[in-house]
């Protein structure tokens, strides 16, 4: 019992048992929070400046937070692979990348749809928008690099290295609003109290909690799928070895 959680989860079998038990609960909590969050979002008072258009904030801002959270998760997992060689670290990094990319795409799409009525343009080469676009391209680059290398162990290490180098994009995104940007500065995650009114902050936080739980559910499910994929590969290798009379050699 004294074994650290990370060490106990190093066994894929134990991870599959625990994640199989957790996944329905996380999904249910996420669904509940999102239903309540959507109701609160559409019944929230109008923003005094932006009117109804500010409702896009309730999906755009959580997507933006999670696009960065997803990349931090990829980088942390990559660190776990390169430094601690944790057996599930690469599974976690690989699973998080497409989910992070999807949330970044969602952030860009909803931001664009919010930008048009407020700024008069779907897209401007603004520091915040451009740095988030680079984050999206970085996710795509990580996935492309991994899939372009046949040797999975080498692909994992090179992808991990790139993701650690790419983490520089996170502070760039965070501080880009201070660099002559059209984008508004942080109004929730900032030093001091949030500048957003409580009647708009509450639905935003509920939506953010729901979408975070959804992200975690997606990540757990993607990790389970990746473990199954590796099991299929190991079984196929073992089958080939057995049929070639090499059954004495272990299949990974």
């Amino acid at each position, binding site marked *: 019992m004294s074994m650290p959680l990370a060490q106990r989860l190093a066994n*894929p*079998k134990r991870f*599959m*048992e625990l994640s*199989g038990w957790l996944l329905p609960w996380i999904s249910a909590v996420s669904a509940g929070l999102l239903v309540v969050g959507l109701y609160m979002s*559409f019944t929230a008072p*109008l923003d005094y400046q932006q*009117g*109804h*258009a500010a*409702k*896009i904030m309730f*999906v*755009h801002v959580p*997507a933006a937070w999670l696009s960065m959270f997803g990349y931090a998760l990829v980088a942390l997992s990559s660190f776990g692979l390169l430094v601690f060689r944790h057996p599930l670290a690469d599974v976690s990094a690989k699973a998080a990348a497409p*989910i992070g990319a*999807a*949330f970044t*795409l*969602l952030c860009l*799409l*909803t931001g664009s*749809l*919010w930008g*048009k*009525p407020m700024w008069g343009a779907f897209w401007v080469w603004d520091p915040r928008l451009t740095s988030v676009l680079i984050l999206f391209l970085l996710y795509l680059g990580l996935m492309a690099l991994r899939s372009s290398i046949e040797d999975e162990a080498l692909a994992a290490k090179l992808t991990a290295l790139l993701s650690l180098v790419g983490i520089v994009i996170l502070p760039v995104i965070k501080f880009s609003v201070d660099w002559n940007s059209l984008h508004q500065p942080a109004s929730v995650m900032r030093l001091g109290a949030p500048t957003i009114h409580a009647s708009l902050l509450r639905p935003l936080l509920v939506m953010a909690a729901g979408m975070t739980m*959804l992200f975690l559910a*997606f990540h757990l*499910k*993607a990790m*389970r*799928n990746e473990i*199954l*994929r590796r*099991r*299929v590969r*190991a*079984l*196929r290798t*073992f*089958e080939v070895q*057995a049929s070639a009379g090499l059954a004495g050699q*272990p*299949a990974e």
Partner: protein
Amino acid sequence: MDLGPHFAFILTAYGAAALVLAGLVAWLVLDGRRHQSLVDELEARGVRRRSSPSESR
């Protein structure tokens, strides 16, 4: 529900969110099912890893 003059942008944003998230759900569920059926198929043929003969799903 009155969503003001920008209702098309609001509905498209929420629609895009629903589409992206539903797409992720569909991909994850189908991918999981595909790999689970491959594992089942291989195990039904008697292929097992000796290190873990009865791994959990």
